[in-house]
């Protein structure tokens, strides 16, 4: 047992820290630091800078731009990025569709899609959830019917995060409605969002932002070559995609950063001396430390192929803490949090205090999207505890 990083890993950390704090434009990092919404352009610019340096998709195979890093190095890369307020490479590209194409796609698909996916030349959206298929994803009803060398897609996807920026969308579609189990008969299809019949409609969230969308498919014709892997095996690819990551499951670095900033805000507002506020900080900081160390245990775990059981703690507790920190920030803002709809010109309230409640409300989604905390508890109870 040893806590220290090896000399090699320590040097690696230093290299990452230097890169992120010097090569990514300050204005983008400032926007992240003040929890402002990023523009599409900010996200694209940042990812291209990373990609040019080989830092956008390190988890991919080396052939397609990946790096042969250890899980610990990928963890360090991921934490240092958050610490430096650098936007994480778009998850739909880097962690989702990229690995699926790289693992299950045809050579043509790889050549066509992987380089622009890494460079965010293609902005991918995710077409999984449907109005009646949320936690029960396998009951999805969007269909793709084969006609000649095309698939004809009909149906509706929802909760499509940042779908308004999407160039392409990867979808789970039902290709065999007669399959004996609902998990069977599903395929994984890549759809050009400029195709006739694709409509993206915004869903406004309770924080007032437009972050998710409905995507409608009406007789959308998709070339057969855009089906990934085998027909009717899409559920396996979706499971691969969702269970793929050991690194970055919990937003540790980002939550730590917000908590550290909140300390400054509390100090400036004179409330850090309140013993109850200080105790809340100490308690959250300790929980976050325990979470970070759990993430480190998971990544440092000798890779025998099986995920470390504690990894299922990460998403569950990670979202709970992210939400709790956002709640504390609202309390520190106090009455100033009411100035949420004001522009900087209209208000004497600090930026951070004006976004405090919208951020808190927005983060209620964290325990719902991407496998709700109820689903996580179910996984722990069944898979780990055998209940």
């Amino acid at each position, binding site marked *: 047992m040893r806590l220290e990083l090896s000399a090699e890993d320590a040097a690696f950390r230093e290299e990452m820290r230097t890169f992120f704090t010097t090569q990514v434009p300050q204005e983008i990092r400032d926007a992240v630091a003040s929890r402002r919404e990023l523009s599409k352009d900010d996200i694209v610019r940042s990812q291209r800078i990373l990609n040019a340096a080989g830092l956008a998709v390190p988890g991919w195979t080396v052939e397609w731009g990946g790096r042969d890093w250890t899980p610990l190095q990928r963890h360090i890369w991921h934490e240092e990025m958050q610490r430096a307020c650098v936007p994480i490479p778009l998850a739909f590209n880097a962690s989702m569709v990229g690995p699926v194409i790289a693992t299950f796609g045809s050579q043509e698909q790889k050549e066509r899609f992987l380089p622009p996916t890494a460079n965010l030349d293609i902005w991918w959206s995710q077409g999984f959830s449907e109005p009646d298929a949320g936690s029960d994803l396998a*009951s999805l009803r969007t269909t793709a019917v084969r006609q000649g060398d095309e698939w004809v897609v009909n149906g509706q996807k929802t909760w499509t995060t940042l779908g308004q920026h999407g160039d392409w969308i990867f979808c789970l579609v039902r290709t065999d409605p007669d399959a004996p189990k609902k998990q069977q008969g599903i395929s994984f299809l890549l759809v050009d969002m400029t195709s006739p019949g694709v409509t993206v409609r915004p869903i406004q*969230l309770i924080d007032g932002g437009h972050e998710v969308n409905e995507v409608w498919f009406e007789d959308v014709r998709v070339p057969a070559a855009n089906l990934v892997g085998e027909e009717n095996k899409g559920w396996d690819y979706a499971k691969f995609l969702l269970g793929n990551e050991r690194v970055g499951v919990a937003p540790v670095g980002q939550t730590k950063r917000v908590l550290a900033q909140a300390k400054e805000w509390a100090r400036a507002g004179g409330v850090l001396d309140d013993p109850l506020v200080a105790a809340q900080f100490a308690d959250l900081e300790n929980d976050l430390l325990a979470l970070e160390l759990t993430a480190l245990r998971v990544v440092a775990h000798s890779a025998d192929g099986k995920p470390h059981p504690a990894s299922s703690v990460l998403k569950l507790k990670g979202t709970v803490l992210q939400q709790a920190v956002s709640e504390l920030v609202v*309390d520190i803002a106090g009455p100033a949090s009411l100035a949420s709809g004001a522009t900087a010109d209209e208000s004497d309230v600090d930026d951070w205090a004006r976004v405090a409640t919208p951020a808190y409300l927005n983060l209620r989604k964290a325990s719902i*999207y991407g496998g709700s905390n109820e689903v996580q508890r179910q996984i722990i109870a069944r898979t780990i505890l055998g209940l």
Partner: protein
Amino acid sequence: MNFEYDDEQEALRDSVKALLGKAYGDFEQRRKAVDADPGFDDSTWRRLAELGVLGLPFAEESGGMGAGPVEVSLVAEEVGRVLAPEPFLATVVLAGGLVEAAGSDEQKAAVLGPLAEGESVVAFAHLEPGGRWSPTATAVTATSSGDGWALDGVKEPVPHGARADVLVVSAALPSGGTGLFLVDPAGTERSGYAVHDGSRAARVTFSGTAATPLGDGGDATATIATALDRTRIAACHQALGAMSFQLGATTSYLTSRKQFGVTLNTFQALTFRAADMYVSLELARSLTLWATLVSIAGSPEEIADAAARASLQVSKASRHIGQEAIQLHGGIGMTAEYAVGHYTSHLTALEHWLGDGRFHLSTLASCIGDHDEVDPIP
């Protein structure tokens, strides 16, 4: 001892419920009302005036109905139930309450009459940027110049400050203490904006702005504190109405939404959480009802204690219920077109306008050694 409304109170509740239910029973109407300035519906405001609601707590001499805290509380609860955006709390209970408490007879007639008739919106400019929930003012100062007073400084956020026809303003007095003034907003610079829950607030800048002392002038800190405490108790009722709606919406959703081929109420882990929401709601309701009854005849100290207790309990309940209501709904609870998340947004705004749970807990903790037990019955 009796915790039930009398017939007159029931009748008032039914009228308010009918009026607001018609206006906002369809949540889409409420969304429309908050979309455009002033963030509420003028015709609903007028109808509330016709019903007497906007003059409810004021003496009949001031143009009001002479009703008490119980009547105020049941209006607030109905406002909360449909999330009616009309500024009953900010204008009638708080700003109007201050004028009623501290104003001269002439001022009461001049300000409260039009308020009760729905012709004038009154706002209390008290919170200051970077400040918290103190009953005193520091950022806005009052200076006396021969025959009049002038104010300087910034108040923000001022709930409904941009729409207000009359401002009640707190300001640091040259002699120390905090005074209350009536101000014509025309002499101020105002920038108004929407709050996350759809209500409105503003920054109000005073630059040598002419001001009239409310009543006799002098230090009004205690008056402000009690008016805030009374507003807190009414706000607890507003929160009860909102939480009742959220619990009802959640149980309806659990019995109708299907996942994995069955309705969600098949999952015991979810129904038990709804049961815990009910426990939180009922405990908050008990303490809030009590605080209202204490405020009928209580001393300022007793009202302050009761307001802190109810506010703490409602803070815990509203975070619990507000968060669980969204979580048990899943994705749909996050969307602006669905009601339940807006209630969470409003509960958060309400608490941070008047004082959060930790603030009240600190107050209660600081005097924990002053008594052995709390006996709720006088």
